[in-house]
């Protein structure tokens, strides 16, 4: 939790001495006062909502901010704090949280804590109490939400879905009839009730804070009936009992209530499942088959993208690296155009160009051919690489041009004097020097393409689908787009945050290892220290 937007423009002391009341100090004081005020407001909000995790994180950030900006000793901290606060919350914490989620079964059916799951189960399994009293009822509203007002033993009680029934004093109405005036509430007219009929019949007003006590519901907006849960939660024994059948459900290791015959109640809660998600990714045949194919394609895609763009960029750089050539600058400017277009636009544009039935490539360039550029497994892969070549070669062209121009002239001359031919000079001097200076950028490019979600998603959406897989994955999916599909955030599949996070961690490990090895090779560490 960051301490609200003001951290964007962090206070900076113009003086390191708090006793010195210069204008800078005043600016700092005002900014810190604003941040503290927002922070305290935030703390109260967290306390009210019961979000203790956010509460402690916010408190810690706030205390740290005050210490850093009012202490004379934390000089470097004054400059690092704002960025560090964001880094801790939105990068380090989320990576850590990803790791934690990957060891749970968080997802559809296991969305919440056990307490919330029990409450949901009790609410979802309510039925009318046989032979129970009928209460005269009026549909009311508190301005925002619909509610019911009922008459019980001459008392008038009112509540909404969020607010349990409470007694209202001073309500009036004919004896044994629904109340017509309820202080603090507006009674809806017959027409208004008709207009919101569906909302009214779906409304459930709890009798008390305890879900076990049941609720009031109505079918006709005139009479209310008491509904109680058909399930009963036994707190001591930690079991759910079905009041009708007497079946006892016990919590199992997967975070669901399960009866002895194996039937389970639908709402579960999230529990740690150890390495299950990783085992699923590598072992469960629904996922492991697609996963390994996607992993292989991801590596192939990243490597081939770097190689093809580098080769084309290098070839063009060499071509235009001749001072005698006229119009070099014009060529260069035109050639970097694809790089100056936002990647998502280019990918979408190519999706249209390569469209099978109407696309420019098939219709005009190939004279009406119907080549399935994006729907055939192999052609789709080729298209993805081709589009990425178009997008990526200008970057390689730029860095190769830079590298060629900075090659040491004396070494070239020495090679010439030693009698090396063009080819020999190129192979033994130019290329090695070029690779040394561009290697870190090639590694970054590899890492970038390894996670080039935008291109894949916009161009093919991972398609065409694997025919033999039950999960919505396809031939051009790379790992990151697989994570997106599995997570269910696009709404096409059931949500499985646990498995998606596990796959994210696998990507972290692969990319991290490759980058670390490669960067160590290039001695980047020694250079920056």
């Amino acid at each position: 939790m960051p301490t609200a937007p003001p951290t964007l423009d962090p206070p900076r002391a113009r003086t390191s001495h708090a006793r010195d009341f210069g204008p800078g100090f005043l600016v700092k004081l005002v900014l810190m006062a604003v941040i503290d005020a927002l922070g305290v407001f935030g703390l109260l909000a967290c306390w009210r909502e019961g979000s203790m995790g956010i509460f402690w994180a916010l408190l810690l950030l706030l205390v740290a901010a005050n210490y850093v900006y009012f202490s004379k000793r934390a000089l470097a901290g004054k400059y690092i704090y704002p960025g560090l606060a964001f880094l801790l919350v939105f990068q380090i914490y989320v990576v850590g949280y990803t790791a934690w989620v990957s060891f749970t079964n968080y997802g559809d059916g296991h969305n919440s804590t056990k307490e919330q799951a029990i409450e949901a189960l009790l609410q979802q399994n309510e039925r009318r109490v046989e032979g129970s009293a009928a209460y005269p009822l009026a549909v009311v509203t508190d301005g925002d939400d619909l509610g019911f007002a009922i008459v019980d033993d001459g008392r008038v009680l009112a509540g909404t879905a969020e607010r349990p029934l409470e007694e209202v004093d001073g309500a009036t109405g004919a004896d044994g009839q629904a109340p017509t005036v309820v202080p603090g509430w507006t009674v809806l007219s017959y027409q208004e009730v008709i207009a919101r009929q569906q909302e009214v019949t779906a409304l459930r007003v709890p009798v008390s804070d305890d879900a076990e006590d049941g609720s009031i519901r109505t079918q006709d907006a005139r009479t209310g009936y008491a509904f109680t849960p058909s399930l009963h939660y036994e707190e001591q024994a930690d079991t759910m009992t079905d009041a009708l059948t007497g079946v006892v459900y016990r919590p199992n290791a997967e975070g669901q209530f399960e009866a002895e015959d194996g039937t389970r109640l639908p709402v579960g809660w999230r529990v740690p499942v150890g390495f299950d998600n990783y085992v699923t990714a590598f072992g469960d045949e629904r996922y492991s088959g697609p996963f390994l194919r996607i992993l292989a394609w991801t590596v192939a895609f990243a490597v081939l993208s770097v190689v093809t763009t580098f080769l084309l960029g290098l070839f063009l750089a060499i071509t235009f690296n001749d001072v005698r050539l006229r119009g070099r600058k014009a060529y260069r400017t035109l050639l970097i155009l694809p790089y100056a277009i936002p990647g998502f636009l280019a990918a979408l544009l190519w999706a249209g160009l390569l469209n099978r039935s109407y696309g420019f490539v098939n219709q005009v360039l190939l004279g009406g051919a119907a080549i399935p550029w994006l729907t055939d497994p192999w052609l789709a892969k080729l298209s993805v690489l081709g589009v990425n070549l178009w997008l990526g070669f200008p970057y390689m062209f730029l860095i190769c041009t830079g590298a060629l121009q900075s090659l040491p002239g004396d070494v070239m001359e020495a090679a010439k004097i030693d009698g090396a031919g063009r080819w020999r000079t190129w192979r033994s001097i130019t290329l090695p020097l070029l690779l040394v200076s561009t290697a870190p950028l090639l590694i970054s490019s590899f890492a970038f393409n390894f996670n080039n979600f935008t291109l894949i998603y916009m161009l093919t959406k991972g398609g065409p689908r694997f025919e033999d897989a039950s999960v919505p994955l396809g031939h051009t999916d790379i790992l990151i787009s697989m994570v997106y599909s599995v997570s269910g955030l696009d709404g096409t599949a059931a949500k499985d945050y646990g498995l998606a996070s596990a796959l994210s961690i696998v990507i972290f490990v692969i990319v991290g290892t490759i980058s670390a090895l490669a960067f160590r090779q290039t001695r980047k560490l020694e250079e920056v220290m």
Partner: protein
Amino acid sequence: MSAPVAPEAAPLRTRMPAREWVRELGWRHVVGVVAVAYAAFPLVYVVSASLSVNGTLTGSNSLFASVSGDNYAALADTRFWTWVVNTLQIAVATAVGTVLMGAAAAYAFSRFRFTGRRVGLTSLLVIQMFPQMLAFVAVFLLLLAIGEVFPALGLNSKLGLICVYLGGALGVNTFLMYGFFNTVPKEIDEAAKIDGATHAQIYWTIVLRLVSPILAVVGLLSFISTFGEFILARVVLQSQGSWTLAVGLYGWVSNQLDANWGLFAAGAVISALPVLALFLFLQKYIVGGLTAGSVKG
């Protein structure tokens, strides 16, 4: 990067026999023309499609068969301009925040010697390898939790998305800036210090002015990458009114590609222009920034 064409180019060429010219330079022009055609044809096509009366994918295939502003006018009936405003708000705020926070951190690492400095630098280098977008599931869940307490920072909030982007600011850019800050001689600071300047005065009035080229580069790179960022924006921004261009234009194309093509083409031309203009005018700086630290020259 782009060294000026040597002045002796012209006389050399006139002295060169035709056959030699073809062998030495002519083929380069052939390659150049082919490459430029390859690079530019999709762009020519999209401009033509945006001007086509028809507005469909099929109807856009004959280049410049018709020229009209219909598609551009039709954008007014969509949420396109809302998306433009959203995107600019998010990208500018992220770029400014990134520059401010990155520069401050780079200054601290470059000028102060404090406990944890080496560890901090090494950690940043490691963190750099873990792209934030990979953790989008956790980002979604985090904003879901935050949103219950502060709706203004939760899901579907532009401010929340900006905060997420700023979380990646330090990891990506501090090194680029750190290297540049180190090239500013320390003696300048020390002289100012002797004259009685405080560290904040040195930072705001002296150092920041001297490093302004790298500030421009980082700001631009951040703007451009935020402008085109898709996955986090897609996960965080859920209602059409808060979408960015990347999410919105994707929506048009993924849903009825053929019918929306003219709209998309017009939208694409408009949204590509600011980035294209920035890029072409500031080419030198951007290229310098991209290759800083690895290509020496």
